[in-house]
């Protein structure tokens, strides 16, 4: 059987996870929820890289890329959480609609 067909269920679930993350990113107005949505999309991409490695037989390369992705993910999340806390201290809200300090 074709390798792509073997991994098709993975592809469908990865797409569904990415859709959940994107949908949450679009509809939410809470900054912490936006970070959670980004995390969901990152999980989908991580699984996609691993499945890509399994299909192409380059699992070592896929794991190396996932390692880099995880490091970047952690740094982005920690810095973004810091920004969210700093914004909350300044404005007293997590609602992105109320962040109008830079509005022209």
């Amino acid at each position, binding site marked *: 059987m*074709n390798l*792509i*067909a073997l991994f*098709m*269920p*993975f*592809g*469908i*679930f990865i*797409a*569904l*996870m990415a*859709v*959940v*993350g994107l*949908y*949450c990113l679009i*509809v*939410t107005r809470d900054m*912490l*929820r936006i*970070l*959670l*949505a980004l*995390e*969901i999309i990152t*999980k989908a991409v*991580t*699984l996609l890289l*691993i*499945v890509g*490695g*399994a299909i*192409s037989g380059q*699992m*070592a*390369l896929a*794991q*190396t890329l*996932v*390692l*880099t992705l*995880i*490091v*970047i*993910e*952690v*740094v*982005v*999340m*920690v*810095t973004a*959480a*810091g*920004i*969210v*806390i*700093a914004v*909350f201290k300044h404005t007293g809200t*997590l609602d992105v609609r109320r962040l109008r300090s830079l509005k022209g």
Partner: protein
Amino acid sequence: MDPNYKIALLENIILMAAMLLGTLATAMLRQFIKAAIALAFTSVVLCILMFKLAAPWAAVFELSVCAGLITVVFISAVSLVRPATEEERAAHVRFKVRRYFLLPVVLLAVGCGLSYMPVRPLPLLATTELVTDMRALLWGPRALDLLGQILVLLAGVWGVVILFKEET
């Protein structure tokens, strides 16, 4: 079809369904602590899938860093912000129904669309050589990635230091 393959496929589908439920809970649970725990659950299931797909190094990092560290970061961030008032909670429940009612439709449409999509073999890019040892790859051809990771980590640490610096 080989019965062992069928069992493995069923296991994978159950794990991926659990992962999808975890992501839905992460996106929709009102309390951030519960959402962070749902995200950690998603990471744990992803880690099991990685082990099953013969990616143990990535699985270990996923488990320790994503399921552990990121959950701690989220819970710390949640504990530093003000809890929602009764009015905000009521508004959240009201808006959640209005905002998320389309999600099942979108998921169903994407799932059905992809299920009926014809499967074509993708052209894979030619690679120079197949390296099977991850350590050899990481410290050899991909060594520049490590330098990038170190720089990104330093930038992140610097950013957090700047954000939490006491004003004088």
